[in-house]
C-alpha cells in the first residue's frame, strides 16, 4: 500500500493530519515560486485566499485552515508531480461544490478545485452555525479521502514525496506510525535501491522501539547489500535501532566489524560510527572490537592521514576530516581503560597531533578530537604534554570558536594534569570577562575547578571585582560560583565574612537562601567578630538597601548584636571607628521594614530584630513599639500576627522579655554544612567532653548534642529526646500532662529537621496561635519567671520527683484509649522478655532488662545495667540516649555516677520507652556514654537495634487515629515551644 494513502486512511476524523504539524512548516505551503504554469499561479492564489479567509474568520478557523491546507498539500504533491511534464492538463467537469468528489479525480481535473475553493469559502462563510461549518469541512475531507483512494495507483511513484511527508509529519511517538511498518518492510525489500534508500532513511530518522524490533532483521541483511550507498544507510539505521533497543546490539556486532574493512568512505564513516555506538551499548561489543579491530583501525587512520591529495574528500588540504574524527572517537572508546589498545594507537595519535595543519577549522577539529582521545586513553606522559601544548595554542588563538573548545577541553585536562592547566590561569581569567556569553560560562566553570587554597584569595578578588561590572544575566551564575568558592576554600573566618559581604552588597539579589543562611551560621560562630561584622553590615546597608539578602543578614545581625554596634565592642585594628546611636540602629531597621522592595521574610526578620532591640535599647523601646504597632494592620497575616504578639510582649510582659530575646545560641557549623550537603557529619568525635554538667542538671547547650540529634535525624527520623518534654513541664511549672510531653518531642524533632528555623524565626508560625498557649503563658507568669522555674529544676528532688512519676506516658495513654476500640490483648501485658547485651566494648558492657507495665503495650520499661570491664574506676559516668521520632524516651536518674573497676559493681538506670508506632516499628536507640578515667574524658557511642520484637495487637486503623491526634497536639504545642524555649533546653541526657 502506498504511504500517502496509508496515512490518510488511518484517521477518519475530520482532521486527517495533526493540525499543528502542518502549520509549523509554513513554508511548505508557500506556492512554488517559479510560476511557469497557469495552474501553479492558481494554486498560489488559493493560498492567498485561504489566508485571507483565515484572517477574517476566527471561528473554527483551525479546522477550516486544515482542510484547505490539506487540499493544497495534496494538490501540491500533484503540482510537483505534473507541472513540468504536463503543462496543459485537461480541464475537467465543473460540478458545483460541495457536490460529489470534484477533486476526486485529480488526474482528470487536478486544479479545478481552484475555482471551487472560492465557492467553498463562500459556502463556509454563509454557514450560520459552527455545526454547519463542520459539516462543510467534513464533506471536503471525505472528498479528499475519496480522491486519494481512487487514485491509489497513480501515487505509486511518488514515494519520495510520501516519505518526505512521513518524516516531516510523524515522529516515533505517534501511534499512526505503527501502520507504516508493513509498507516500510516492503520497501526495504524493494528491487530499486533508491526506494530501499528512502525506506532506510525514514526508518533511521523516525523509527520507534517496536518498529526497530520488527525491522532489525531487514536492516541487518541490508548491511551486506551490494550497493555501498545502501550499506551506509543501513549502518546508520542500525545505530538508531540499537539506540532504541540496546538488546539488539549483539546482532550487529559482526556485520559492523565487516564494515570497518570497507574502502568506500561513506560506508567506513557510518561503520565506524556504528561500532562506536555498539561499544557504548554493549560491553561484549567493546571487548570484541578492542581485540579484533584496534589494529585495523589504527592502520585505516594511518592511511587516511597519510593519503595523497584526494579531491573528492579534500577539505582545506586534509583528506576527509570527518573520517579522521570518527576514527579518533572510536579509538578513544577502545583505548579507554585498556593499556594494550592505548599502546597500539600512541604512534598514530602523536602523528596526527603533530602533523595536522591548524590554520583551518577542519584541521582544528581533528586536533581537538585527537587531544580528547589522548586525554582519555591510558596514560602516556609524552602525548599528554603534546596535547596540553595544543590546548595552550588554542587558548591563545584569536578565533573565539577555538578558544571555546580549548576551555572546554581544559576542563577535562584538569583531572589529568592540574599543574599544566594552572599555567594558563591568567588567560582563563581573562576569558571570564569575555564579551561572549558562551566563553564566559565555560571559563567560569574552569576557574571554579582551578581554584585551590593557594590561589583562592587573588582569584576571588578578581571575580568579585568583575561582579561589579558584569552583565545582569551573568551575575546569577557568577554569584553562585563565587559563593561556592568562598564557602569551600575560605582560609579564615574574617576573610569569609568580608568576601560574603562584598558579594551581598554587589549582587545580594542573586544570592541563594542557603548561602546567606550559611553566612549567618558562620557569623554566629565567630564570636570575636560579632562587633566587626555588625558594624561592617551597618556600613554596607547604608549604600545597598536594595540587595535583599544583604538586608536580611544585616537585620539579623543588628537584632542580635545591636549593642556591639553602639558600643564599638571588639574593635579590630583594621576598622575605622564609627559612631552609631541607638536610634540610628532602629532607623536602619525601620528603613528595611518600610522599604517597598523588602519581601515578607525581610519584614518578618525586621520585626524580630526590633523586638530584640527593644530589650537591648530600653530607651528606644517606645519608638520600637510604635514601629511594630504600625504593622498591626498589615495585610499579610504573618506580619500582622507578629506585630500584635510582639507588641503585647513589649507592653505586658516586660519581665520575661529580656529572657525571650536573648542571643541565639551558636549553631554548629559542621552540622549545618553537613546537613546542607545531605551527608552525615563525621564530626561527632570532636564533641568529646562537651556536655559539662550544669548545676541544674540540664545539659549545657553545646554543639555536641545537637550533632548527635542531627546525626540521627539524617539517619532515619529526627531524633527527639522526649524527656525534653518533662523539662518543659518543669519549666512551665504546670502539669500539662500528655500534651506538653509531646511538645517536647515535636520541638526536638523540629530541631532535627530545620536547624535554622528557630535561629531565624522565619517560617515558624508565631507564638500565640493555638488555643492552649494562653494557659501556658499565664502559667509562666504564675511562676514569676522562667528563670525561677529553671531554678526549680536545679533541685534534684524536683527533677526526680517529676521524672519518676509516669506523668508523661500514662495520661497520654488515657487520651489515646478513647480511640482504641478493642482493648489490647492480655498476653502482651506484663510479658517477660529476655535481657539483652545492648552494648559491649572492651571497657564497658550494658545489659538491658525489659518489662512491660500491664495494660500498656506501647510502653517498655528497661533497666540498664552498666558493668565496667576495665581495671580502672570510672567517674562522672553519664549515660545518654536518643531515639527516633516515633519513640518517646524517659530516663530516670542512675543509681550512681561512679562505676567500680573490673565488674565489682554496677550502675543501674531505668529507662521508659513509649513506642507510638507499637507493632509497626521496633525499638531503636542510639546511645552515648561519657565517663572519666583518671580525669581523662572518654566517650563511647553505639546504636542498639537488637530489642526483642513485640507482637502488635492494635489494628492499623487505631494507629492511624492515634497518630492524627498525636501529631495535632504535637503541632499545637510545638508552635508554642519553638519560639519560647531557648535551644539549650531541647537536649537532654540523664545525669548522674
Amino acid at each position, binding site marked *: 500500500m502506498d504511504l500517502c494513502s496509508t496515512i490518510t486512511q488511518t484517521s477518519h476524523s475530520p482532521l486527517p493530519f*495533526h493540525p*499543528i*504539524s502542518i502549520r*509549523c*512548516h509554513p*513554508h511548505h505551503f508557500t506556492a*512554488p*515560486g517559479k510560476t511557469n504554469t497557469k495552474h501553479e499561479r492558481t494554486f498560489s492564489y488559493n493560498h492567498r485566499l485561504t489566508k485571507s479567509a483565515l484572517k477574517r474568520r476566527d471561528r473554527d478557523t483551525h479546522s477550516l485552515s486544515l482542510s484547505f491546507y490539506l487540499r493544497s498539500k495534496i494538490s501540491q504533491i500533484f503540482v510537483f*508531480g*505534473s507541472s*513540468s*511534464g*504536463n503543462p496543459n*492538463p*485537461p480541464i475537467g467537469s465543473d460540478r458545483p461544490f460541495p457536490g460529489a468528489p470534484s477533486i476526486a479525480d485529480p*488526474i*482528470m481535473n487536478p486544479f479545478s478545485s481552484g475555482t471551487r475553493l472560492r465557492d467553498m469559502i463562500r459556502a463556509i462563510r454563509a454557514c450560520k452555525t459552527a455545526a454547519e461549518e463542520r459539516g462543510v469541512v467534513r464533506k471536503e475531507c471525505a472528498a479528499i479521502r475519496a480522491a486519494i483512494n481512487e487514485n491509489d495507483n*497513480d501515487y505509486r*511513484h511518488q514515494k*519520495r*514525496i510520501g516519505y*518526505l511527508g512521513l*518524516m*516531516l509529519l510523524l*515522529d*516515533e*511517538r505517534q501511534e499512526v506510525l505503527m501502520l507504516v511498518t508493513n509498507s516500510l518492510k516492503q520497501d526495504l525489500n524493494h528491487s530499486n535501491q*533508491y526506494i530501499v534508500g528512502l525506506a532506510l*532513511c525514514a526508518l*533511521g*530518522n523516525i523509527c520507534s522501539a517496536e518498529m526497530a524490533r520488527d525491522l532489525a532483521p531487514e536492516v541487518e541483511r541490508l548491511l551486506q547489500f551490494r550497493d555501498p550507498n545502501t550499506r*551506509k544507510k543501513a549502518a*546508520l*539505521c542500525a*545505530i538508531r535501532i540499537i*539506540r532504541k533497543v540496546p538488546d539488539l546490539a549483539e546482532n550487529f556486532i559482526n556485520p559492523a566489524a565487516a564494515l570497518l574493512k570497507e574502502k568506500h*568512505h*561513506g560506508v567506513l*564513516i*557510518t561503520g565506524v*560510527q556504528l561500532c562506536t555506538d555498539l561499544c557504548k551499548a554493549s560491553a561484549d561489543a567493546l571487548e570484541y572490537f578492542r581485540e579484533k579491530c584496534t589494529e585495523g583501525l589504527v592502520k585505516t587512520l594511518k592511511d587516511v592521514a597519510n593519503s595523497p591529495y584526494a579531491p*573528492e574528500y579534500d577539505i582545506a588540504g586534509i583528506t*576527509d*576530516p*570527518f573520517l579522521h*574524527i570518527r576514527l579518533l572517537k572510536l579509538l578513544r572508546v577502545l583505548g579507554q581503560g585498556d593499556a594494550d589498545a592505548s599502546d597500539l594507537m600512541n604512534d598514530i595519535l602523536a602523528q596526527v597531533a603533530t602533523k595536522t595543519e591548524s590554520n583551518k*577549522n577542519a584541521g582544528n*577539529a581533528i586536533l*581537538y578530537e585527537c587531544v*580528547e582521545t589522548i586525554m582519555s586513553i591510558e596514560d602516556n606522559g609524552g602525548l599528554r604534554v603534546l596535547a596540553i601544548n595544543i590546548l595552550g595554542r588554542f587558548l591563545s588563538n584569536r578565533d*573565539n*570558536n577555538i578558544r*571555546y*573548545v580549548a576551555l*572546554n577541553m581544559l576542563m577535562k585536562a584538569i583531572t589529568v594534569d592540574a599543574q599544566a592547566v594552572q599555567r594558563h590561569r591568567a588567560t582563563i581569567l581573562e576569558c571570564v570577562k569575555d*564579551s*561572549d*556569553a*558562551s*566563553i564566559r560560562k565555560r571559563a567560569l566553570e574552569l576557574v571554579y575547578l582551578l581554584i585551590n587554597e593557594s590561589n583562592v584569595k587573588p582569584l576571588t578578588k578578581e571575580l568579585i571585582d568583575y561582579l561589579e561590572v558584569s552583565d545582569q544575566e551573568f551575575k546569577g551564575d557568577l554569584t553562585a560560583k563565587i559563593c561556592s568558592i568562598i564557602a569551600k576554600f575560605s582560609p579564615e573566618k574574617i576573610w569569609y565574612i568580608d568576601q560574603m559581604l562584598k558579594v551581598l552588597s554587589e549582587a545580594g539579589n542573586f544570592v541563594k537562601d542557603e548561602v546567606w543562611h550559611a553566612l549567618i551560621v558562620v557569623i554566629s560562630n565567630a564570636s570575636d567578630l560579632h562587633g566587626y561584622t555588625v558594624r561592617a553590615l551597618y556600613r554596607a546597608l547604608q549604600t545597598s538597601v536594595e540587595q535583599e539578602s544583604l538586608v536580611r543578614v544585616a537585620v539579623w545581625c543588628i537584632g542580635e548584636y545591636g549593642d556591639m554596634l553602639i558600643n564599638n565592642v571588639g574593635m579590630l585594628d583594621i576598622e575605622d571607628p564609627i559612631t552609631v546611636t541607638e536610634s540610628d540602629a532602629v532607623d536602619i531597621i525601620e528603613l528595611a521594614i518600610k522599604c517597598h522592595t523588602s519581601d515578607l521574610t525581610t519584614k518578618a526578620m525586621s520585626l524580630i530584630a526590633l523586638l530584640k532591640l527593644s530589650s537591648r535599647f530600653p530607651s528606644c523601646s517606645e519608638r520600637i513599639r510604635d514601629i511594630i504597632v504600625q504593622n498591626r494592620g498589615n495585610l499579610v497575616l504573618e506580619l500582622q500576627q507578629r506585630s500584635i504578639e510582639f507588641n503585647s510582649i513589649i507592653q505586658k510582659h516586660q519581665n520575661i522579655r529580656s529572657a525571650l530575646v536573648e542571643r541565639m545560641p551558636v549553631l554548629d557549623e559542621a552540622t549545618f554544612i553537613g546537613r546542607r550537603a545531605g551527608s552525615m557529619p563525621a564530626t561527632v568525635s570532636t564533641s568529646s567532653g562537651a556536655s559539662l554538667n550544669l548545676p541544674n542538671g540540664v545539659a549545657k547547650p553545646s554543639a555536641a548534642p545537637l550533632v548527635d540529634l542531627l546525626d540521627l535525624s539524617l539517619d532515619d527520623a529526627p531524633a527527639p529526646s522526649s524527656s525534653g518534654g518533662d523539662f518543659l513541664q518543669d519549666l512551665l511549672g504546670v502539669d500539662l500532662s500528655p500534651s506538653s510531653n509531646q511538645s517536647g518531642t515535636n520541638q526536638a524533632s523540629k530541631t532535627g529537621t530545620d536547624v535554622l528555623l528557630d535561629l531565624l524565626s522565619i517560617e515558624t508560625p508565631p507564638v500565640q496561635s493555638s488555643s492552649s498557649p494562653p494557659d501556658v503563658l499565664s502559667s509562666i507568669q504564675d511562676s514569676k519567671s522562667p528563670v525561677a522555674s529553671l531554678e526549680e529544676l536545679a533541685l534534684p528532688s524536683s527533677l526526680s520527683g517529676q521524672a519518676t512519676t509516669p506523668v508523661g506516658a500514662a495520661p497520654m495513654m488515657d487520651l489515646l484509649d478513647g480511640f482504641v476500640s478493642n482493648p489490647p490483648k492480655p498476653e502482651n501485658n506484663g510479658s517477660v522478655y529476655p535481657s539483652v547485651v545492648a552494648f559491649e566494648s572492651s571497657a564497658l558492657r550494658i545489659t538491658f532488662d525489659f518489662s512491660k507495665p500491664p495494660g500498656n503495650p506501647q510502653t517498655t520499661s528497661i533497666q540498664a545495667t552498666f558493668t565496667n570491664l576495665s581495671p580502672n574506676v570510672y567517674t562522672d559516668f553519664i549515660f545518654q540516649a536518643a531515639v527516633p521520632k516515633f519513640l518517646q524516651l524517659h530516663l530516670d536518674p542512675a543509681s550512681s555516677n561512679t562505676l567500680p573497676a573490673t565488674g565489682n559493681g554496677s550502675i543501674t538506670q531505668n529507662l521508659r520507652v513509649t513506642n507510638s508506632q507499637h507493632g509497626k516499628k521496633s525499638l531503636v536507640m542510639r546511645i552515648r556514654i561519657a565517663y572519666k578515667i583518671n580525669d581523662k574524658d572518654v566517650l563511647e557511642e553505639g546504636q542498639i537495634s537488637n530489642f526483642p520484637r513485640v507482637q502488635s495487637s492494635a489494628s492499623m486503623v487505631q494507629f492511624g487515629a492515634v497518630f492524627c491526634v498525636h501529631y495535632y497536639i504535637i503541632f499545637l504545642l510545638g508552635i508554642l515551644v519553638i519560639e519560647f524555649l531557648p535551644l539549650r533546653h531541647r537536649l537532654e541526657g540523664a545525669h548522674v
Partner: protein
Amino acid sequence: MIHFVLLISRQGKVRLTKWYSPYTQKERTKVLRELSGVILTRGPKLCNFVEWRGYKVVYKRYASLYFCMCIDQEDNELEVLEIIHHYVEILDRYFGSVCELDLIFNFHKAYYILDELLIAGELQESSKKSVARLISAQDSLVEMAKEQRSSISNIIAQATK
C-alpha cells in the same frame, strides 16, 4: 549525535526543520522561539556555539540564513561546523549559488539533500560529489516516472472525452 537541524532566516522565519530526536509540537515551537531569540541576537564576532538546556547548539550564518544544529555536550563542535559547511556546499552545488529563495521554493529538495547527508543524526557521506550523484539519479528517476504518468493521464483524459 545531532538532535535537530534548523534553518532560520535573519528575520526569525523558519525555513527548514529536521528533528532526529522526538519533540512534541509544543516543544518544537518552544525550541524554535527560544533558539531564534538566542542565536539571532548574538553578535557577529562571537563564537558559534550556544549552550542550551544541557545541549550545545552550533550555528553558522550564511548570508541571511542561520544554519543551526543541536548536539550533545561531548560532541565535537568544530566538526559540526564543518558538517554545516558541507551541507551548504552541497546545496550550493545543486542549486548553483544557492540563496534563501531557492530553499523556500524548493524546500523539498533541501530535505532530500539533508536526508542524503544525515540519518539518525549522524553523518552518512563525506563526499559532496557522491551526494550530488545520488540526488541527481533520484531526480531523474522521478522525472521519468512523471513523464510516464503524464502520458498515461493524457491517454485517459482523451479516452474519457
